[in-house]
């Protein structure tokens, strides 16, 4: 396809495809969750696709990311295997953890998804540790810790930022500020100051970006990754974004009253997938959107079919792998 608007950033279309794929996968999980075969908690990141996709854009497969309870998007954006993810969420032997972890423990060594940790904040030092390993090995890989606004309240986040700064490690702290920890808004949990002040307090260069603008995220990340690869140490990036669905589970939860419908709608109007689609459309680069969606849906259907067809793990293996 030739670009009708040659000025458009050539990264945009592949980033769009990645975001769309992520969106459709999570929507499919939401839709099918009622089937009661995904018997583990799921934390969907619908609405936050630009953050995950933009942040992973400048990363190489051999770079490492660490994620949290809300890990689907990061896992997929970094190239994690969809079938293994769905297998895990379905508790199947084919899952990336063999069914042992569930949706909050996703990892994919080949894709560089090192681990996801369901204890808020606890993944952060692991990323610093990966960065330390890279520095010790003398290579130019980088590690990325994905974290939520809430995790900045955990002491370990501060300890990790300080340690990374003192040691000058190739790690990026990528904060997705979606304004809430479960149902508690930021203002009830932190004082009124930019989150980037935390990075500054630990001597880190920081950047704040529109977390729904995939190119802005990718640009900020590229600067940080470049700095890290050149041995110039860590960066903290704060991306402002919004979770659309409930904290945990497949539904919407604005009816709970912890946030206003107006706030939700204002963010939905700035849908990262939709706004990017519009830009591409306007530039004549998205005439094939329907086909794209169809292809992705086929991939998703196949992955669900594979997950459902896979056996549950053999109970006799439950005690294996306690020790290496």
């Amino acid at each position, binding site marked *: 396809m030739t670009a009708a608007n040659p000025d458009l950033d050539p990264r945009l279309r592949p980033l769009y495809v990645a975001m769309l794929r992520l969106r459709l996968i999570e929507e499919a999980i939401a839709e099918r969750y009622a089937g009661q075969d995904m*018997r*583990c*908690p799921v934390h969907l990141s619908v609405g936050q696709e630009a953050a995950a996709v933009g942040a992973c854009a400048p990363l190489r497969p051999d770079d490492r990311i660490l994620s949290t309870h809300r890990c689907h998007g990061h896992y997929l954006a970094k190239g994690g295997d969809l079938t293994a993810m769905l297998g895990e969420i379905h*508790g*199947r032997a084919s*899952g990336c*953890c*063999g*069914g*042992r*972890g*569930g*949706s*909050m*423990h996703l990892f994919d060594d080949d894709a560089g998804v090192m681990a996801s*940790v*369901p*204890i*808020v*904040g606890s993944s952060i030092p692991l990323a610093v540790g990966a960065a330390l390993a890279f520095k010790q090995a003398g290579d130019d890989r980088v590690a990325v810790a994905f974290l939520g606004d*809430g*995790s900045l*309240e*955990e*002491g*370990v986040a501060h300890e990790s930022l300080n340690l990374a700064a003192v040691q000058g490690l190739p790690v990026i702290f990528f904060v997705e500020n979606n304004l809430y*920890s*479960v*149902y*508690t808004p930021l203002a*009830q*949990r*932190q004082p009124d100051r930019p989150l980037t002040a935390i990075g500054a307090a630990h001597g880190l260069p920081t950047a704040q970006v529109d977390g729904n603008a995939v190119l802005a995220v990718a640009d900020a990340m590229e600067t940080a990754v470049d700095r890290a690869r050149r041995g110039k140490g860590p960066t903290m990036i704060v991306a402002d974004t919004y979770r659309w669905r409930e904290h945990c589970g497949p539904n919407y939860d604005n009816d*709970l*009253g*912890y946030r206003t419908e107006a706030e939700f709608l204002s963010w939905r109007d700035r849908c990262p997938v939709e706004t990017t689609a519009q830009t591409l459309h306007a530039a004549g680069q998205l005439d094939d959107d329907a086909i794209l969606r169809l292809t992705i849906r086929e991939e998703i259907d196949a992955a669900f079919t594979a997950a459902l067809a896979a056996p*549950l*793990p*053999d*109970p006799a*293996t*439950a*005690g294996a792998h*306690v020790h290496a």
Partner: protein
Amino acid sequence: MPEAAAATDTRILTAAEAILEATDQALAADPTVFVMGEGAADPKGIFGTTAGLVDRWGPDRVMEMPLSENAFTGVAIGAALMGRRPIVIHQRVEFCLLALEQLFGTAAKAHYVSNGRHKVPLTVRLVVGRGWGQGPQHGQSLENLFAAVPGLKVALPADPVDAKGMLLAAVADDNPVVIIEHRWVHYVSGPVPAGPVATDLTGPKTLRRGDDVTVVAASYMAAEALRAAAARANAGVSVDLIDLRLARPLNLEPILESVQRTGRLLTVDLGHKTLGLGAEIVAGVTERAFGALRAAPVRLGTPDHPVPSSRSLAEAFYARADHIATAAGTLAGLPAERVAAVAEALIAERREVPFDVPHPAFKGPF
């Protein structure tokens, strides 16, 4: 149920409702009581156990917390040292691992190190996750870690009466009390006195009298053991079933008294068998009632690996009524067929309900 309660109106409540009621009554009775936790003041209110309290008592007494388990546990300890009576809540036991230094280092030792001058009237509620694929980091009970620390009290309520009564007793107690609350106990319903009736924090209670085997279980395992005991009784083995209630300080006396009669001891741990409460109970009973033992004591508990998420793996992880019945029957010397028959009946009865949701038959009080 204590005497006082009998004098009060009782209603059928779930343990979760009973906890909510106890908290409301504690807030009403004493202006120094307050609640803190992540989600304590949010719309879901810690599985409903604090729902609506912030509307009634305001955000200064039902305090929403940032994600800072270590600090807010320490803040509660500091406030308690100044005479307040905080109720700290962690939605999973695991989150409290971040706060153990405060709890073990400061709270548990303050009275001792101050030569009796300081008190820490702190209540810490820890919720044990189970079911629906909770997995390795949201499904542990860890009561053995807390019970290992002198200076703490560790309560494991098994029914709505104790869920309410032990919480009220904990709030009234001048020591740091850790309450380990099982999610599946939250669903258990039973009669609960309407008034602010504290049950004691002194030790075990007998759920069922019997002469053949002593079974000691706590929290949700008491419910499983109760089903097992009922089934076993039909098959001719009478179980003396003891709900442990308090893991620290551990009051062995009622257990020793029971073993003197039965000569046989089975313990059922909520958490890992290795170094679990059962280890201390078996060791303590063996030390002090060796002559009374007619057979080797037996322990049940979760195996030595993390809690797996997948239902097929989790199914075998937890001790169930049929396991308990089998162990009790074998310990009592029943022939294998009769042991197996009861277990099979229990399994058949359980078959309609998926293993990762609670059995609907569990009703208190036990």
